[in-house]
């Protein structure tokens, strides 16, 4: 079939030039109904007894995607013209509708009407593209009607009045979404509907105020043409809006055109933009550039305030602090050197659905009727959303998901619609679910296609594996693993043998995941999507199905397992003489926990071979660690906490800091060494397409808060290089033992996170890993829980000639997108872990009001932020009562000294000072518990 049937030329108007493309029309496109006796029904997707076939127009798909995802809607024909329009208007909706079409449990069929001989429509003279597409939809509906005959009703769903009228004239049955959903007789579905805008349908009673009385709150968005022109001549600046996580009334637009961040203060200047939107910003005149208003903790407009939260682990999570040092240093006459601006237009919306709850409100008199409620997102960066619901009583104490539909100039808040309920607020399971949804983590069970890729169970090493010449038999070697207690996904094991020449043979054995996860399989696709396992306090969401994670790949004790090994010969001074990579087969003799390993090393009576190995390794690790530190690697500290969980109720029983032992550092050291060796190897073989990990050096601005705090306590830090910083951190010893750790924690949060990247995308200087002070680094050692390691395993195997390099590595854009996805998933997994800890902290303190010691880490005008070392949390302590803004004068902030003083000088608090605080869970509003810190 090499010739096309007939031939029509389609002309698309570009900017200036005329582009002519061929457009082949064909007669081998089928209708997708299994009962059709004309068409080939092999690829039929609709149900065999469909009495009604639905066809949606573009706007319905765009707006009502939540409704379409509901299983009540089925037997749908999606036209390719609709898909194309949706794709151009909103990619995320396009992906969702595509997912629906490929979901085998749903009966959605894609009809390529644009390529069909009978349904292709040529634009008429003077017809707008929209009208042409509407006509194409009607023609396709007509075709279906004639094609399937009278037995099946073809129903066109459109909210466009003109389109509906024309369809009815042409004899196609057409309905609006509202009347169609009503006819289904499921009232629950009605909440999913997006409320039509007042222009679409002539209903004006949307709000009780008459339109004439309604105040215009926001300035109008400029039309796209004006924005483009403005961007071109430099009046406007384009960038992605990022709202301050800790103060939703402050946002930043990183603009390339002025090379700085533009600050946007207040909702009016933000002009209805959401976090993540691509916006056009106009700079305000310089005299309106605000002085730092964010110095106070709470806010003017809303009753919102800073929450108690976990200590940030890097600069990416930390609240953004403008540096007043610049402003105050310049003298009194300078206003502020930070440009501020206002948003004039939105180039691309980033609306999606949000998790949260309804604002508490009294029940309206008549139950069951339609009520308007305000939805408060859990993520404070998003404004409240107005929704309409018929089940208010049901939803008030629930966590729900809401999607945004529109935001017009007259309303303070955007309007949206209810999507679904997660569960009761405060319930541990609900809150965990919220954490997962908010971080876009897929916690669904694996599909049967994915599970079918697993090897049959029970699995054991086969004779084929034994016979494989590429696989070395290392079962005779004394291999062991050291992991946290209770670890089931053991992906690394070690060995250390003394050689006759006085050197040591040290091996790192990593679970051979790529032996089971083959590229291009559903299993691999799923793992690519998930990117990483997610560890919550009470559960783990696996990247690979459980049999692989806990059994087949896990390097458990006393069973034969396949591994990918890095074996070095090292001198007693830990100099690497040779490096060898091989696929192997091992039999671990012990799965130790860190505590056990530490105990063995410390117990001088034990002289068994395993303990000797441990001691040898530890000696080597210490040398390696020292050498790494001498080279300039940073030892940063984080305040990780560990919960003890009740096995029955899964409620937290106790929390405490995670203790780091020598054994942890020993394992870490060898993993680092393995990763570095592998990074060098793969980059040598595949310079353009290796997956590496880099850690960008922090900029001066990022380290500014650290330097200011250090200066306030009389400490000088040299931040010129990582080496200098490491040295000055070592010298930072105060009177109390915790001081050094505190400084390190503060330093950690100034750093950005390390990221994965494709080696072809950057120049070799940029590969540098700042934290480890290593020129090259990658992740190789945890393939069970990180997909990056799987990719690296494949690269390493290909460099050894074991497998061919999968096709995907040829496609650099695709590799880059994998790296980006991994970074995204990795970051989300971390955020989710932290959020989960926060949820459990709240549950823990609910029954246990506690007094404890805390350290001041930041000074604000009406209080300070404290860090509670024992529980690893951070939160505000107010000196003045809230709402008492006028009387705030009795407390003075000293910027230079980082102190807050009472005006009569009787009391003062300085940064890093120790204070006693009281921690208690309070419920200022029903169903909204929060942790409150008060000074004792």
């Amino acid at each position, binding site marked *: *079939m*090499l010739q096309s049937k007939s031939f029509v030329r389609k002309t698309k108007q570009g900017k200036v030039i005329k582009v002519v493309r*061929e457009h082949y029309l064909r007669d081998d496109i089928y209708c997708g109904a299994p009962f059709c006796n004309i068409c080939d029904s092999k690829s039929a997707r609709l149900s065999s007894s469909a009495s009604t076939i639905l066809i949606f127009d573009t706007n319905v798909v765009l707006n009502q995607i939540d409704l379409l995802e509901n299983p009540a809607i089925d037997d749908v024909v999606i036209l390719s013209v609709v898909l194309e329009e949706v794709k151009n208007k909103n990619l995320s909706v396009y992906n969702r509708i595509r997912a629906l079409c490929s979901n085998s449990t749903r009966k959605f069929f894609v009809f390529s009407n644009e390529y069909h001989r009978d349904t292709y429509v040529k634009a008429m003279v003077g017809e707008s593209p929209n009208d042409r597409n509407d006509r194409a939809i009607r023609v396709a509906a007509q075709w279906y009607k004639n094609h399937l005959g009278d037995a099946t009703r073809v129903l066109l769903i459109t909210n466009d009045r003109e389109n509906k009228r024309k369809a009815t004239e042409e004899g196609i049955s057409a309905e609006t979404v509202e009347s169609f959903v009503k006819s289904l007789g499921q009232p629950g579905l009605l909440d999913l509907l997006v409320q039509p805008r007042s222009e679409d349908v002539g209903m004006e009673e949307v709000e009780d105020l008459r339109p004439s009385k309604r105040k215009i709150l926001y300035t109008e968005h400029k039309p796209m043409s004006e924005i483009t022109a403005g961007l071109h001549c430099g009046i406007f600046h384009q960038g992605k809006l990022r709202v301050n996580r800790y103060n939703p009334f402050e946002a930043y637009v990183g603009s390339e055109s002025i090379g700085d961040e533009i600050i946007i203060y207040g909702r009016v200047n933000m002009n209805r933009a959401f976090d993540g939107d691509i916006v056009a910003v106009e700079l305000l005149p310089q005299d309106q550039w605000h002085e730092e208003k964010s110095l106070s903790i709470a806010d003017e407009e809303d009753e919102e305030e800073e929450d108690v939260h976990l200590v940030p682990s890097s600069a990416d999570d930390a609240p953004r602090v403008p540096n007043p040092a610049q402003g105050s240093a310049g003298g009194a006459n300078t206003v502020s050197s930070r440009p501020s601006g206002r948003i004039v237009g939105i180039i691309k919306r980033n609306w999606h659905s949000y998790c949260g709850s309804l604002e508490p409100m009294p029940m309206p008199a008549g139950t069951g009727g339609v009520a308007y409620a305000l939805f408060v997102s859990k993520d404070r960066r998003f404004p409240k959303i107005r929704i309409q619901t018929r089940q208010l009583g049901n939803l008030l104490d629930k966590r729900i998901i809401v999607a945004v539909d529109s935001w017009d100039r007259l309303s303070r808040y955007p309007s949206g619609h209810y999507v679904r309920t997660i569960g009761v607020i405060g319930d541990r399971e609900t809150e965990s679910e919220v954490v997962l949804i908010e971080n876009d983590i897929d916690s669904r069970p694996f599909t049967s296609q994915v599970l079918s890729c697993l090897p049959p169970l029970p699995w054991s090493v086969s004779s084929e594996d034994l016979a494989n010449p590429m696989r070395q038999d290392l079962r005779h070697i004394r291999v062991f693993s050291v992991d946290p207690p209770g670890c089931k996904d053991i992906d690394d094991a070690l060995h250390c043998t003394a050689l006759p020449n006085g050197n040591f043979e040290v091996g790192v054995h990593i679970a051979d995941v790529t032996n089971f996860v083959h590229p291009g399989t559903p299993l691999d696709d799923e793992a690519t999507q998930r990117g990483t396992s997610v560890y919550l306090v009470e559960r783990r969401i696996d990247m690979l199905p459980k049999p692989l994670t806990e059994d087949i790949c896990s390097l458990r004790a006393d069973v034969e397992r396949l591994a990918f090994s890095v074996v070095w010969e090292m001198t007693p001074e830990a100099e690497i003489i040779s490096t060898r990579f091989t696929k192997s087969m091992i039999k671990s003799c012990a799965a130790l926990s860190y505590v056990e390993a530490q105990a063995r090393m410390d117990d001088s009576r034990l002289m068994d071979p395993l303990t000797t190995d441990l001691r040898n390794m530890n000696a080597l690790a210490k040398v390696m660690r020292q050498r790494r530190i001498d080279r300039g690697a940073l030892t940063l500290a984080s305040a990780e906490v560990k919960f003890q969980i009740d096995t029955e109720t899964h409620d937290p029983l106790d929390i405490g800091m995670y203790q780091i032992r020598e054994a942890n550092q020993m394992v870490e050291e060898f993993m680092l060494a393995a990763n570095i060796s592998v990074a060098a190897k793969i980059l040598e073989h595949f310079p353009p397409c290796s997956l590496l990990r880099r850690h960008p050096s922090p900029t001066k601005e990022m380290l500014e808060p650290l330097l200011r705090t250090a200066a306030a306590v009389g400490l000088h830090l040299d931040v010129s290089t990582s080496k200098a910083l490491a040295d000055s951190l070592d010298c930072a010893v105060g009177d109390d033992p915790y001081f050094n750790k505190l400084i390190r924690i503060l330093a950690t949060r100034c750093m950005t996170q390390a990221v994965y990247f494709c080696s072809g995308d950057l120049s070799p200087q940029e590969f540098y890993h700042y934290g480890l002070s290593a020129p090259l680094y990658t992740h190789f050692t945890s393939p069970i829980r990180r997909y990056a390691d799987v990719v690296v395993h494949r690269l390493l195997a290909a460099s050894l000639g074991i497998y061919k390099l999968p096709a995907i590595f040829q496609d650099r854009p695709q590799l880059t997108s994998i790296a980006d996805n991994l970074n995204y998933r990795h970051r989300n997994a971390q955020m989710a872990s932290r959020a989960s800890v926060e949820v459990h902290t709240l549950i823990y303190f609910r029954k246990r009001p506690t007094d404890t010691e805390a350290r001041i880490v930041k000074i604000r005008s009406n209080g300070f932020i404290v860090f509670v070392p024992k529980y690893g949390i951070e939160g505000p302590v107010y000196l003045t009562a809230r709402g008492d803004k006028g009387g705030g004068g009795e407390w003075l902030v000293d910027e230079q000294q980082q102190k807050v003083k009472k005006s009569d000088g009787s009391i003062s608090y300085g940064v890093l000072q120790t204070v006693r605080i009281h921690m208690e869970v309070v419920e200022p509003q029903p169903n909204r518990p929060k942790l409150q810190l008060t000074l004792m």
Partner: protein
Amino acid sequence: MEFVSPEGFRLDGRRPMEMRQIRAEIGAVANADGSVVFEMGNTKVIAAVYVQNRSQQINDQALVRCEYSMANFSTGDHMRKPKGDRQSTEISLVIRQTMEACIMTNLMPRSQIDIFVQVLQADGGTRSVCINAATLALADAGIPMCDLVTSCSAGYLNSTPLLYLNYVEDSAGGPDFTVGILPKLDKVTLLQTDAKLPIDMFENVMQLAIEGCKAVANYIREVLQENTKQLECRRGT
């Protein structure tokens, strides 16, 4: 970008293994010895062949020369195309070498064969169209050839081998192979690409391109037969 939809259609409505529409018109230039306008989709090329005697040249075989150019109006930008730039020199060379492989030059001693190829409209895969046009023009001029060289390209996008990329698909930057074969002799005379492709995928793409070449060859043969019939008719035998 999505070059093959999940339904299996390319941007122009073809399936991955389908060819573009081919059209040929023999005798487009009356005063040439052989000429043709050849179209594959929207790519359109005119080729003219002149044969002259040149006794001072090499004595035992014919000299083949080729000049390739692009019309200023062939692309959307209407830019003045430089003559004799690197790209046209390279394509001229490619066409000349491919044609030399099938012209039986030893049968035409002391003569010079000039092949002029001009792209009238460019929409991807110009090389292949030029070679096919040159073959037809040579055949029209009655130059002895051992086989009809035909050419076709194939690419690899969205993990699918695609036959004969058009301009949009070509500018996606994926691998694109131009293949020329002698269909009767089953020999490859041309294989060009500027991208990397693993060998196992390459085999599929190559096979697809060869299938394409054979289809072109069939079409060219039909055109020639049709043309010959008409000539016969006009002569009135």
